[in-house]
């Protein structure tokens, strides 16, 4: 059905998508994880309340989250050019992906950490743990299963975002789907890219669920 050139294109698209998704996820967590922690810690019921900072951060995150990703990516083109020298291709796409996903991840991390039993945090404080120790030794380890599940959701969301950037020449499977499927009406090629995307999402989600279950000592 497909000639070798097309197959090679699929292979490359797959690798590009994977590359964008994984690198962006890692970088977005570098930003989003601390942000999520700060949101929980500075909450009015948190271990180091700072209502002002909490509110400012919350507003910034909500603002970024409410901008549709494609519009954010277009708006960020100058920034992307400044950092990577181009606005095209997978590496350039990492810039808007990280900025678009970090606030989302911050909220995911926030909700995971808020699940941690307040009593356990109080117990650690009663033993003389500092806020930093409470974060590292209690909140993050106790929330681990939930954080892993959240990571699976985040990674698949980022994969979806990365496919959207196909509209602006972002590379990867989304790019192929749009160029061949949308502009050239080659529905078969579009279908194959969609199937590959579905499989990747399934695999990431399954890995996340298994890792979370494996590390969870509550059952």
């Amino acid at each position, binding site marked *: 059905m497909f000639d070798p050139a097309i197959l090679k294109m699929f292979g490359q698209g797959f690798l590009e998508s994977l590359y964008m998704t994984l690198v962006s996820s890692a970088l977005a967590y570098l930003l989003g994880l601390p942000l999520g922690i700060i949101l929980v810690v500075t909450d009015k019921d948190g271990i180091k309340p700072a209502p002002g900072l909490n509110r400012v951060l919350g507003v910034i995150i909500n603002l970024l989250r409410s901008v549709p990703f494609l519009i954010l990516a277009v708006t960020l083109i100058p920034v992307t050019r400044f950092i990577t020298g181009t606005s095209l291709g997978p590496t350039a796409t990492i810039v808007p992906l990280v900025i678009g996903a970090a606030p989302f991840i911050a909220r995911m991390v926030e909700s995971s950490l808020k699940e941690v*039993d307040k*009593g*356990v945090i*109080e*117990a*650690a*404080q*009663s*033993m*003389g*743990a*500092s806020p930093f*120790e409470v974060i590292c*030794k*209690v909140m993050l*380890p*106790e929330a*681990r*299963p939930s954080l892993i599940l959240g990571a699976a959701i985040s990674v698949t969301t980022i994969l979806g975002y990365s496919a959207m950037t196909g509209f602006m020449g972002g590379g990867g499977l989304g790019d192929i789907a749009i160029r061949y499927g949308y502009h050239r009406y080659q529905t078969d090629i579009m279908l194959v890219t969609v199937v590959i995307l579905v499989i990747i999402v399934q695999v990431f989600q399954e890995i996340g669920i298994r890792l979370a279950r494996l*590390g*969870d*000592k*509550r*059952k």
Partner: protein
Amino acid sequence: MSAGTSLIKIRGLSKVFKTDAGELNVLEDINLDIMEGEIFGIIGMSGAGKSTLVRCLNFLEKPTKGTVYIDNQDLSCLSQKELYKIRQSIGMIFQQFNLLMQRNVLKNVCFPLEIAGVKKKEAEARAYELLELVGLSDKAKAYPSQLSGGQKQRVAIARALANNPKVILCDEATSALDPATTKGVLALLKDINKRLGITIVIITHEMSVVEEVCQRVAIIDSRHIAEVGYVHDIFTKPTTDAARRLVFPEGERVENFISSRCCRIVFNGSSSFEPVIANMVLEFRQPVNIIFADTRNIDGKAFGQIVIQLPEDKLAGEKMMAYLRNRGLTVEEVKDFV
């Protein structure tokens, strides 16, 4: 007052919470001395402020006014770092155990040692020692979710003991446990107090817990300390309404039964093994109605009380009370108690 020196001094302590609905006075002008080596109970109905009070003892809640001295150190004068340090010498156990669910039993007991900066090897050796003490050596590798409530509380006790604390605070530590498990946990606390000389402060709403283990008790009622004293004094002669409510939890029902003269007989350990009521009835050939009876074993002595309805005949009633007094019992006529 007990002969020892006071380990915990609470002075003029008040706590106000700021809520959306305005200010909420939880504690007002609390003054209390807890002696070294004693088991001290703080009892009150829910909402009386006792959980807040215990959190003020290690400054998990900072008092709005007044202060707490632990071992003559004024907690309100300590820096944050010094406060973390002193908390290591104050163990705490909770109603919901509050164990780390993702750590096994051994690592849970190691946790406070990690915070205190003890080396891993030493910490684990100490943790095994403590698990031995609480009788859970075989559960070292188990996770909290695999333990029963009583076992979880034992782990929490081992954890509270890890840094050789001067005092252990128990916040409703047995309220989530069934009566048999409660007995076991209380026996363990008593044993720890006896063997290691650690002061224990028990917060509870159950009189039975106080009777079982405490030497002295403070009754806290709507933000204030209503009464402080030795458990058997308060139990035999409650002077405040708050104390009476706790000593006679079913008092209101008793009231309904009292139609004529009743008397309350207090057993103080000397004569509860003699069938004194039955003998009295045989002696006078007049029936009495037992309205309320509650006797139990406290600290090796039998304590308790029985409320009886006396015969209508006034003279017979007087004679019966005299009969009981002659047998070393405290007898008082009750008209409208509780």
